[in-house]
């Protein structure tokens, strides 16, 4: 009887894990639509290509070496032994299949990489970006993942878990990490032509398709239930089922709070309801709650999300003033608010310390930003990372992919 109940638990937890992983995979579609909506139509095919290719690269690199670097005790390279069950011969019997764990982890790598593509959109070379994706998903992300979720020490110096660091579903490990790489890329590739005037003025470059950006945001919102909800890692007990339900509820609440707060903030500052800011606000709310969706009350989750929504609007305006050109606001949404998300965890979770969160954030940022700067720098020296001015004017759909997204329209 006990064995039968365990079998049922194993089946249910594995099934839940896989469904959540599939939801997170769908976030790749959300990022793709969001980015395709916020770039100009002449750069649509290229951003779509980057997104589908980076997803596939993340899956292959994480299988080849990423998972083994991140969780040395769980997987060896090429995932030898992953097809065994999680109970027989395991040191700590898990309630889900090891391959389900890999599947759930691999879609997170792709999420981190997706953050980069939007920030460097409309001017970075396709193949330079994909070369970076190989290193990011195969090495840079797995290393910091090893220090955090992997529980290993940072180069033998200190262990984040012992310092009171906690990041439930990855405000820092996934979102801040992705944004750190994005910042390195943006600094090296430079602003889009025409974004900043010679006199220091900031010019708007409106996105081509706001229905697409809105659909992308809703897809991300939905996928986030898998992202945060799946990070409970189990659902087949009263305790874990309650935790899953709380996480779903708070994740949704934070997104709603973020959207409304950003919409009102944008209306107050600009005099008009800027949809793109509202969309960024929903995502900011989601990023803000991701580090600790299990402990706040629903009201507090809404307020945390709302704070993220206000923060993201000011962050986007500040980055623009600093001439850091981020077409989709990825650095603000995932980086600035990701950091904020880490810092608010101790408010509702007594096991987590502010100092631990700060050291964790600095570790993630320092590692990912530093290594990304080096890797992008090497790629820049070897093959160049930016398209020519003429190609940028004509649109990189033609120079990089040889096809337009909307060939029946004739306009720039």
């Amino acid at each position, binding site marked *: 009887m006990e064995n039968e109940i365990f079998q049922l638990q194993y089946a249910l937890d594995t099934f839940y894990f896989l469904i959540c992983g599939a939801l997170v995979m769908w976030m790749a579609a959300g990022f793709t639509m969001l980015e395709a909506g916020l770039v100009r139509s002449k750069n649509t095919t290229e951003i779509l290509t980057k997104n589908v290719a980076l997803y596939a690269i993340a899956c292959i690199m994480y299988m080849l070496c990423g998972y083994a670097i991140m969780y040395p005790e769980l997987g060896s390279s090429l995932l030898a032994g992953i097809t065994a069950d999680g109970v027989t011969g395991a040191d700590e019997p898990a309630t889900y299949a090891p391959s389900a764990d890999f599947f759930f982890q691999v879609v997170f790598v792709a999420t981190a990489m997706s953050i980069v593509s939007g920030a460097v959109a409309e001017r970075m070379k396709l193949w330079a970006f994909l070369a970076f994706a190989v290193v990011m998903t195969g090495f840079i992300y797995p290393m910091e993942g090893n220090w955090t979720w992997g529980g290993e020490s940072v180069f033998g110096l200190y262990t984040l878990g012992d310092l009171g660091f906690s990041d439930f579903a990855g405000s820092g490990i996934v979102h801040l990490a992705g944004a750190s790489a994005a910042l390195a890329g943006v600094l090296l590739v430079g602003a889009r032509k025409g974004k900043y005037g010679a006199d220091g003025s*900031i*010019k*708007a*470059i*409106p996105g081509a398709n706001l229905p697409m950006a809105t659909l992308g945001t809703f897809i991300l919102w939905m996928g986030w239930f898998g992202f945060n909800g799946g990070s409970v890692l189990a659902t087949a007990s009263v305790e874990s089922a309650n935790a899953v339900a709380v996480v779903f509820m708070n994740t949704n609440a934070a997104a709603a709070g973020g959207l409304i707060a950003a919409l009102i903030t944008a209306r107050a*500052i*600009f*005099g*008009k309801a*800027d949809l*793109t*800011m509202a969309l960024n606000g929903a995502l900011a709310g989601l990023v803000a709650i991701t580090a600790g969706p299990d402990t706040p009350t629903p009201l507090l989750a809404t307020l945390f999300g709302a704070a993220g929504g206000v923060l993201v*609007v000011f962050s*986007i*305006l500040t980055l*623009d003033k600093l001439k850091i050109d981020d077409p989709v*606001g990825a650095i603000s949404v995932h980086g600035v608010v990701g950091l904020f998300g880490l810092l608010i965890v101790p408010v509702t979770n007594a096991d987590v310390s502010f100092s631990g969160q700060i050291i964790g954030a600095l570790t993630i940022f320092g590692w990912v930003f530093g290594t990304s700067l080096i890797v992008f720098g090497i790629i820049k020296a070897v093959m160049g990372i930016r398209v020519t001015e003429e190609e940028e004017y004509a649109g990189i759909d033609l120079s990089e992919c040889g096809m337009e997204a909307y060939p029946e329209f004739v306009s720039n």
Partner: protein
Amino acid sequence: MKLVTAIVKPFKLDDVREALSEIGVQGITVTEVKGFGRQKGHTELYRGAEYVVDFLPKVKIEVAVSTAMLDQTIEAIIKAANTGKIGDGKVFVSSLEQVIRIRTGETGEEAI
């Protein structure tokens, strides 16, 4: 015969078309155009940054009428397209030397 060319605000097109039908105008030609007059362009905000819209969308309506119909045609257009605000547009009148209906070969006022 006269050719009346009116530039009006796009949202007034239906009103103008109805007003012209009421006075018995048989056909008009409509073109979506862009331009500026005293209204000039305007600036919009996108994610906090300004962008300038230099040319505003307008609708150009062309009507060929007999000289006898001219005054009431102009009056119908002006009445229907007037909002009292800047950017209402203009009406240009020019003489029309010849009109030919392609199907029948009729010419002059018969062809209007």
